[in-house]
Each structure stands twice: as C-alpha cells, then as structure tokens.
C-alpha cells in the first residue's frame, strides 16, 4: 500500500471529564470506500468532527496527504480537500438550493481546479443527485430526503478528495437509501475517497470495502465487512453479552 490519504494517529477527545475518543488510529487509502460503524455514543461523529476540524482533538495527530492538519481550522481542511455532510442537515436555509452549492464552489473549491461558471457547475452537480428541479427552491423548506441530497450535493461542490458522509441515510425509506448509495458509489467511481458513517447495516455492508468499528471511544475491530460482522467484540458491543 502507498501513502494513505488520511491517517488518524492516536486521537483523544475529551468533553470535560468524559473521554469521547480514547486514542483512535486509522488509515484510509486513496480511492477507498471506508465504513465507520458503532453503537450510539461510540464516538463516530466526534471522530469525524476532529477529522473535519469542527472540533480540535486534545491529543494525537491527523495527517491528510501526508501533511499534518491537526492545527488547521475547518475551512483550511476543506480547501485541502476534506468535505463532510452533517447528520442533521444544516443547509444555508435562507438561500436557494443552487446558491448553497454556488457559494461552496466559490469558497471550497477555490484553490483547486474549478471549471468555469459556478452556477453552471452547481447545476450539473444538482442534476447528478436529481435535485435539479429544486434548484430555485429555498433550501430551508425542502423535505427530508431532499435535504439529505442537498447535504451530499453541497459536500460534492467542495470538490473533495475525501468525502465524509455522516449518517446521510438515517430515517429514509429503503428505496431512498438505495438512491443515496448509488450517488455515493458513483462519486467514488469518479475518484473520491468516501468515509461512510451509518447505522443502516445493509447500506454500509454493501458500500464499504473496509469497516472500522468504534465502541465507547475505542476502535474494537477493523477489516473487510464480512470479517467485521462476525467478530465477537463487535457482536458484544452491539448486542451485549
């Protein structure tokens, strides 16, 4: 294996006296589809908050493309190619769907390749996720599935090398889950590395090439999906003794 795209080294995050992450390490290879699972409160979202820069880790280091990004604010990490979605959609609610993408193209993709007119490009991305009929709608008024798609589309507009999808599918119907999976698979096929955090096992199992399992802030298993689900520790974490 060559140099990993993302290397998380012994990351610790505490909230007051509570340790949310107790020294997590993992590596994600370029082009990989990486799944991150674990019971509620296991630290998945905290970990990706640390990777995206929304939170600062107390100990440990994070490398992206071999460079230490631990001290960088979130927007600089985005400039380097890390984009994320939010578990609870956070659209720029007073803007239209198209404007949400346009402003992201203008700010996030700025230093790297950006082809042509941002409005045109935003429309192409929207068409890719099937949201183009809603381009002119105020984003705060969308339905759940539309907002999830917008979250994904906006993250895609950041032209990331690594896209982190935080429970994009929670609460969606089975056909809607398939629709989002399709979008992520297509994105990955076009060269974007994807970390998927998901509770819907069917989706993670189908999507991921490799899965890491978090429990109580520790990584308890890592490997190909079929190996991970048959792991004793994982079973214990999910089902108890």
């Amino acid at each position, binding site marked *: 294996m060559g140099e990993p795209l993302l290397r998380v080294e012994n990351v610790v995050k505490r909230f007051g006296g509570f340790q949310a992450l107790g020294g997590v390490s993992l590596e994600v290879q370029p082009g990989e589809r990486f799944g991150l699972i674990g019971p509620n409160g296991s630290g998945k979202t905290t970990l990706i908050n640390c990777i*995206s*820069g*929304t939170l600062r880790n107390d100990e440990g280091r994070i490398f992206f493309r071999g460079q230490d990004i631990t001290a960088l*604010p*979130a*927007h*600089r990490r*985005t*400039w380097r190619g890390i*984009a*994320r979605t*939010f578990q609870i959609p*956070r*659209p*720029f*609610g*007073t*803007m239209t769907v198209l*404007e949400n993408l*346009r*402003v*992201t193209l*203008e*700010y*996030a*993709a*700025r230093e790297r390749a950006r082809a042509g007119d941002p409005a045109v490009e935003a429309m192409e991305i929207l068409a890719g996720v099937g949201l183009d009929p809603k381009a002119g709608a105020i984003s705060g008024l969308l339905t759940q599935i539309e907002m999830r798609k917008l979250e994904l589309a*906006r993250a895609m*507009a*950041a032209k990331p090398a690594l896209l982190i999808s935080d429970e994009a599918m929670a609460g969606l119907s089975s056909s809607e889950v398939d629709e989002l999976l399709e979008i992520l698979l297509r994105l990955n096929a076009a060269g974007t590395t994807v970390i998927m955090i998901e509770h819907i096992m069917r989706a993670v199992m189908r999507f991921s090439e490799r899965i890491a399992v978090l429990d109580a802030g520790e990584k308890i298993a890592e490997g190909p999906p079929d190996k991970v689900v048959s792991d004793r520790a994982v079973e214990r974490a999910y089902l108890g003794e």
Partner: protein
Amino acid sequence: MQARWLLALAGVLIVGAFVVTRTVDNRYVYFAAYGILQYVLLATAWNILGGYTGYVNFGTGAFFALGAYTSVFLIQAVQAPLVVLIVAGGLVSGLLGFGIGYLTLRLRGVFFSIATLALAVVLETMMVNWEYVGGAKGISIIRPSAGPLFTNYVQLLFVVMAALAMGAVAVAWFIEHSRIGRGFATIRDNEEAAECMGVPTLRLKLLATTVSGCLMGIAGAPFPYYITFVEPVSAFNLSYAVNSLAMPMVGGTTSWVGPIIGAVLLGTLQQLATVTISSELNLLIVGVVLVAFVVLAPEGILGLLRRGTRRTRA
C-alpha cells in the same frame, strides 16, 4: 449593468441634493434631511453586520459617538478640516469594530449583543471622564465658514451626508453582490456548516465588524458640526442603537434597499412626530413599529413585497 445604473442614480441624487440647496432656503429642511440621511448611513452600516452575517450589534451608539468624539478631539487639537474628521472617525471606529470582531470567536447570538451594549456603556463612561473633549458637561463646537458654494453650514453638511450615505449604500450593494456577501450569508445561516464548506468565517466576520464600525464612525464624524454641542448622553444615545436596528428590520435585512426604506420611513415619521406632537414620542413610535413588524412581517417591507409578487405570479 445594474451597477452602472445605480451609480448614475447616486450621482444624480447627490447633484440633486446640491441643486436643492440653491432653491430651498428653509434651514429646518436641511436639518431634518441630514437626520434622515444619517440614519440611512447608520442603518446600512448596521445591516452589513447584523443583516448580512446575523450578528446583532446593540452598540451603534458607541461606534457613532467614537466617530463624533474623534472629531471633537481633532477640532480641539488642530482645527482639522471636515474631510480629515470623516476619515479619522471612520478609521478609529473601524479599529474598534475590528476588535469587536474578535469577540465573535467566543460570543455568539445574544451574548455578542450584550457585549456590544456593554461596550457602549464603557466608552460613554470614558468620555464622561475625559475633560479635554468636554467631559460630562459637554463642549460647544463652532462651525467653520460654509465656503463659497453654500449659504450656510447645515446645507454643506446635508450634501456631505447625502454623499456619505450614498457611499455606504454602494459599499453594501457591492458586498451583497460579491462572493464576500454570499460568504456573509452562510455565516448568518449556519456558521459551522459555513466553516466546513470552506468559508473562512473569522476573517469574514472581522471584515463585517470593521466595515460596519467604520461606516458608523463616519456617520458620527460630522455630528459635532451638525449639533454644535457634544455631550455624552446625546452622543451615546440609545436611540442610535434602537433606530439602526429597527430600520433594517422594518425595511428588510437581506437587501441593501431594506435599511434605506426603513430609515426614510421611520426617520421621517420621527421627524414629523417631533415637530407635531413631542420629541419624547420618538422611541415609542420606533418601538411600536418594530414590535408590529417582528410579529407580523419578520422579513420587513421587502419580505411583504416579495410575498405579494409571488402571490400575483402564482
């Protein structure tokens, strides 16, 4: 294209203001018009921070008075000309705005607002205790001669304020139609998401607080010559904070037009009330109108208009 038309319009308005001074002689008209234009400037300045980025500033009085007192100081010290006063007032208040910008690192929402309110109290106390600029008892300022173009100094101030207000609106227009303005809006909508979409939020917030503070200082700079007697209670008056917040809210905060509509409407209303009923009634009027709008039309007059056009189209 639109920009060129608006620039032309602004030019026409300034020339128009000048032409008016040739024809209308009543001094009160200029006095009142200056007051309204000053509010166009203040409301526009407030809106750049409060409307575009969503950080509500209760300390307009502080920035305004700092501009005014910078002028008092420079008049006292070196008899500086009006142009210098305006530039200096803008610089000093802009600097204060830059400092306030760093507060946004830790203070969001209502806590930021409280801090700006406290700032006004602190600055007022400082001015009360600074004898050189008049202290608590205030200071009289003597107007210079109006020069060959104007028959009196209030006319000159009126034209200057018209130009300054227009300049502020131009700044707001430019911000709104640029990448910067779209970045501001992401901060207003969701700061954390903005940061994750590559928007350098701190840098943009510092820009917003600096520009907003600077324009408020510019609004205050000619104030000593306008009022000819500066004392802390009137310079730091709460009505500046209330008005510059209420006017954009009434007009509509998401567009540069909103503060103008609000300032002209509320400013005129207050002038009329001052003349016809009583000068004490001003803030009551503003309060009632503001409450009515917040409850009935939270997006201001522009929001109402937009809803109206949408309905007719549908």
